[in-house]
């Protein structure tokens, strides 16, 4: 087990900066998930922690010791790759014990560990087969077994579930989360799938354009996104974003007649420059009756949930209402769901800052 510190980590490939001055601490036993769009630098960061990429500058520390110059094999890490990296010429059992054999562990000890891991992953029937004979999901399970069999200090997972079919992915995700908690191994997981991140992470590290955008627990990153990017990247359907126009007595929602009065706004916000309103679809309600100026355009239902769209400033916005008896025709905003962002920087305006 180990604590990992990244200090001013920067990685450049020629003129391209893949990781830009990243600082992060992953605590002992923590499940940290790197989340971000493709090309944001999350995989590069992971590979640097593994020792497969060199840091251009900055330090990587395991339990306070600098490991920049250690080879991957000397870092006591284990890794599962996005694409199958099993040895095709070896049987499943031989694949799993490969790291132990490569280190020259005693035969009896190897057999004991293989027994243990076979039990954990329920791999009994597959042990004698070749990787090619297994479906992709099972192969990734074997890769995971190979990773944990040697009690690594750090477990690194690079989009391990992205090449697996939907149904099996869900199952593997639960198992993975369960396993990690059981083993208590410090884990860093890279994904672009927010659902994986939300369900697995102790903390999510959200990255964009080679930089860390926000580090927070899943709930906090959902309810208190630090920026427009964080707000829109997490949550599905995506958070709506509406320009606010200053008018007498408050701020107007784009070109709609709806005006948020001073009392509905965080104090001091009208004094700022351009401001945007962010509101998640789940914080919109369908209502009936007069006095509501946002007209619904389209609705459809999935089970009890109602999806609807409306337009502000030529932008089509989405809402979902899951109440048993929603209204029809108009849209209102749930005040607690309103988030305000600086239009210039994209950063969220919290009440303390405003």
């Amino acid at each position, binding site marked *: 087990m180990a604590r990992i510190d990244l200090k001013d980590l920067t990685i450049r490939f020629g003129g391209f900066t893949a990781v830009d001055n990243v600082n992060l601490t992953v605590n002992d036993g923590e499940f940290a998930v790197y989340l971000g769009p493709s090309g944001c630098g999350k995989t590069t960061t992971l590979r640097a922690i593994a020792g*497969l990429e060199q840091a251009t500058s900055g330090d990587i520390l395991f339990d306070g010791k600098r490991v920049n110059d250690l*080879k*991957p*094999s000397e870092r006591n890490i284990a890794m599962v790759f996005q694409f199958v*990296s*099993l*040895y095709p*010429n070896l049987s499943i059992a031989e694949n799993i014990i490969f790291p132990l054999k*490569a*280190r020259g562990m005693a035969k009896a000890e190897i057999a004991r560990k293989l027994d243990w891991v076979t039990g954990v992953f329920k791999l009994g029937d597959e042990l004698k087969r070749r990787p090619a004979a297994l479906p992709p999901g099972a192969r990734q399970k074997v890769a995971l077994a190979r990773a944990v069999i040697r009690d690594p200090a750090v477990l690194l997972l690079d989009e391990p579930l992205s090449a697996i079919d939907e149904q099996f992915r869900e199952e593997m995700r639960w198992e993975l989360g369960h396993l990690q908690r059981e083993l208590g191994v410090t884990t860093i997981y890279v994904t672009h799938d927010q659902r994986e991140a939300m369900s697995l992470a102790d903390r999510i590290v959200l990255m964009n354009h080679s930089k860390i955008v926000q580090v927070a627990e899943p709930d906090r990153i959902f309810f208190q996104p630090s920026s427009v990017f964080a707000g829109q990247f997490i949550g599905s359907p995506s958070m709506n974003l509406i320009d606010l126009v200053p008018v007498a007595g408050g701020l107007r929602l784009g070109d709609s007649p709806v005006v948020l009065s001073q009392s509905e706004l965080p104090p001091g916000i009208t004094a700022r420059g351009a401001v945007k309103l962010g509101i998640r679809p789940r914080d919109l309600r369908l209502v009936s009756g007069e006095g509501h100026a946002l007209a619904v355009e389209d609705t459809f239902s999935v089970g009890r949930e109602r999806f609807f769209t409306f337009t502000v400033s030529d932008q089509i916005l989405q809402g979902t209402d899951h109440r048993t008896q929603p209204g029809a025709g108009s849209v209102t905003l749930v005040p607690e769901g309103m988030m305000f962002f600086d239009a210039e920087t994209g950063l969220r305006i919290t009440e303390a800052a405003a």
Partner: protein
Amino acid sequence: MEQPLQKRSTGRLMIIGFLSPTILLLLFMVAYPIISLVYYSFHNFSAMRPADGMTWAGLGNYEYLLTDRGIWQRFVFTGKFVFLCVTMQMILGIFVGYQLQKTFKGRDFLFTALMLPMMLSPVVAGFLWRYMLNAEWGVVNYLLTGIGLPKVEWLSQATPALWAAAVVDTWMWTPFIALLATAAFRGIPETIYEAAEVDGASPAYVFFRVTLPMSAPVLFIALILRLIDCFKQYDLFVAFTGGGPGSSTETVSFAVAKTAFSYFYTGEASALAVILLCIIMGLAMILVRHLSKMGER
């Protein structure tokens, strides 16, 4: 019903029409010689004395050949040559191929330079090396004496000549193995190496446990191709020793050529050629089966 049937038969006619020139050419070029070869092998016949005619010999030619100690000696010599060549070429070729899979400056140039011996005609290479191996004034002995070793009569004794030929064949064909080996090594996904690196395997462990087994199908093809090619080696020994001293450096192919075109025992030569053909076809069949198995995967 009528319409499609007619269409199909004209289609079949078209296919036969298009294929027939190739099929005829193949029959003429391959089937005819093989059939006549087998036919001659069952007869006493000399191409030099057609007037004597052809008399049925049954298995006589085969019986004569297989009981002749001389021919076994040629098979043994050929076997030694094949073993030496293939062993040296495979080991060296895999080693060079492993070095060449890494990307470094000048790699492309080195690759091309290594291919050069392969592009020489074997007879040309043979004569070139015969001069270099000349006992009195050849550059090889010059270098040997330069480091204080005695001169070697390379081409006038069977064993040194065997080694010399094997080394020259290795010099010519190692690049071929290296080329295939490099391609095979480079076809192994990078993540497999990375996984092995993370798993803590030493480079040697990775090489013998992962790289080599994963490249085995391709290396096997290279091996069979070299086996076939070495087995029918003829040119080098013509250039080096002319089969001598005596017949001690004659390969089986050499014996076929000599029987057919020096002694003009056409029937006997045909029988020997049929035996040679069977061995080579056997090897080729292993190759083809292996290739089609690889295609299925």
